[in-house]
């Protein structure tokens, strides 16, 4: 937590769209006049390797260029990382927010994260992705859940950005599927605390 800057850490594995989600959120925030930073943490690249990405959002120009030490929000795109790596590293145990991709209830993760008293939310992002996009890429429903839990930005501005960005690369069908995934992530997230 740095004064006047909201910091988000995204956990996942390479290939799950971790970087894309962190960028998408940042760019949607920029369209609303915010200053942003988004960057992945690169290690040795290979599909399936654990990786992190970060998003910073602020009303003022962001000067800091060091890594994110004390994130306000944690988004876990791959639930198998809970217990494998310290997803709570640097997080304020009272005020932090954790959102996990899982079909299970938040209470299940409360037990796995002893000491954490902040807001905890889960959403079956992989399930939603399979339904809507036909592929197990959970980043977009996670983004929808994040918007619901935090009220960071209006959902519409993320929809706008997603439509615009994905249309450059993907077919209309995939774009539609992703928009649905975003919406369902937003609707179906279960929040505890």
């Amino acid at each position, binding site marked *: 937590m*740095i004064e006047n800057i909201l910091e988000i850490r995204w956990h996942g594995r390479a290939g799950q769209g971790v970087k894309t989600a962190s*960028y998408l959120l*940042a*760019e949607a925030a*920029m369209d609303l006049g915010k*200053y*942003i*930073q*988004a*960057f*992945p943490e*690169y290690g040795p690249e290979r599909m399936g390797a654990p990786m992190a990405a970060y998003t910073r959002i602020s009303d003022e*120009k*962001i*000067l*800091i*260029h*060091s*890594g994110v*030490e004390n994130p306000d929000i944690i988004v876990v795109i791959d639930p198998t990382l809970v217990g494998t790596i310290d997803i709570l590293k640097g997080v304020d145990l009272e005020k932090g927010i954790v959102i996990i991709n899982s079909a299970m209830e938040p209470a299940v993760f409360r037990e796995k994260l002893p000491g954490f008293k902040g807001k905890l939310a889960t959403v079956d992002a992989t399930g939603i992705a399979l339904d809507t996009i036909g592929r197990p890429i959970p980043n977009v429903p996670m983004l929808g859940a994040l918007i619901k839990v935090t009220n960071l930005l209006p959902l519409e501005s993320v929809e706008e950005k997603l439509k615009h960005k994905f249309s450059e690369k993907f077919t209309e069908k995939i774009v539609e599927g992703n928009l649905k995934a975003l919406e369902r992530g937003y609707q179906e997230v279960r929040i505890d605390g």
Partner: protein
Amino acid sequence: MGKKIAMETNQLAAFAMAQIDPDVVAAYPITPSTEVVQEFSKYVANGEVTTEFVPVESEHSAISACLGAATAGARVMTATASQGLALMNEILHIASSARAPISVVVASRALSGPINIHGDHMDISSIRDAGWIIMVAEDAQEAYDNIIQSIPIAERAKFPIITSYDGFITSHAVEVAEVLEKEEVQKFIGPKKPDYSVFDEKLTIGVLALQDSYIEFKRKQAADYDKVIDIVKEVGKEYGDLTGRYYDTVEKYMTDDAEVIMVAMGSTAGTAKVVVDQMRAEGHKVGLLKIRLFRPVPKDDIIGVLRTADAVMIMDRAYTYGGVGGPLFEEISAAMNDLPCRPYMANYIYGLGGRDIKPSHIRQVFEDGLKAVKGCGFDQQIKWITVRE
């Protein structure tokens, strides 16, 4: 007000290059500058630029092709990093002697070994004697602005130029940047005017000069290189008139009444500004001097700021084996010898291979400086930080 966009700095660099629309780009990709070339080749493929794009098989060939094209009068650009820049070394010296105004984008990276792809300033430091202009950007905005300015600077000075930004920390981060329209960029840089024609039969290009004349060529080159400083200021001012973003060889941040001044380059300067704000709020007189023009060293500008400080903390994201300290420390402490009474000076080697430099590290350096001001001194003048002790 220009329009604001957000993209990875490497993509932004390619965007700037496309706005410049150079005649020739010859390149070989290397991490973390790969996307610059990759994205630029898309502009070429889409017919959005008129550039002759020459994919080559090594950086040595890339810079050789660039030099050939520049010699023929073309406006030429490329991008590289780390070992790629090191491989260019031989030709870098010829390009600066040939006064070829090539513009090279560098996403600064550690030199191997051990193999490391992350950001530090070893690559640009290792070629600082090659006679190139070297500018270092703090963030995406400055990276864009420096690339646009690199063209008039290089062509007026008749020297090749490197505009760098930190590998990964900046190259792979998305930030907001305000950009110009292509027409505005074209108007700002103007058309390339070749100094001579290669078809001029009276001209010998790439002469041999032995004991009887080599040193005069070098003396002339050295004198002209010193003029770069004023050209950088002049272009920075013109760019400011166009965009509202004025640039000088250095940037002062709360230095006027500062007792302790940190000197830093690249993305660290941004983080240091945050710490300066925090410590100022606590009543400490600290400030930052950001070096934007790394070569030639803007000696007078640096001395002008540092002369009134009590302690100067110089941050080097590079090291010179067996040297007196890091590259910035060596240059600045040599420059400060002109002063009758110099401030206390300390050197911090940090962040090699992309090791994160946190606000807490920077605060510690300032605190060391404040202690020195109070007369307690240091245990060491050259200190490595962000390292396992």
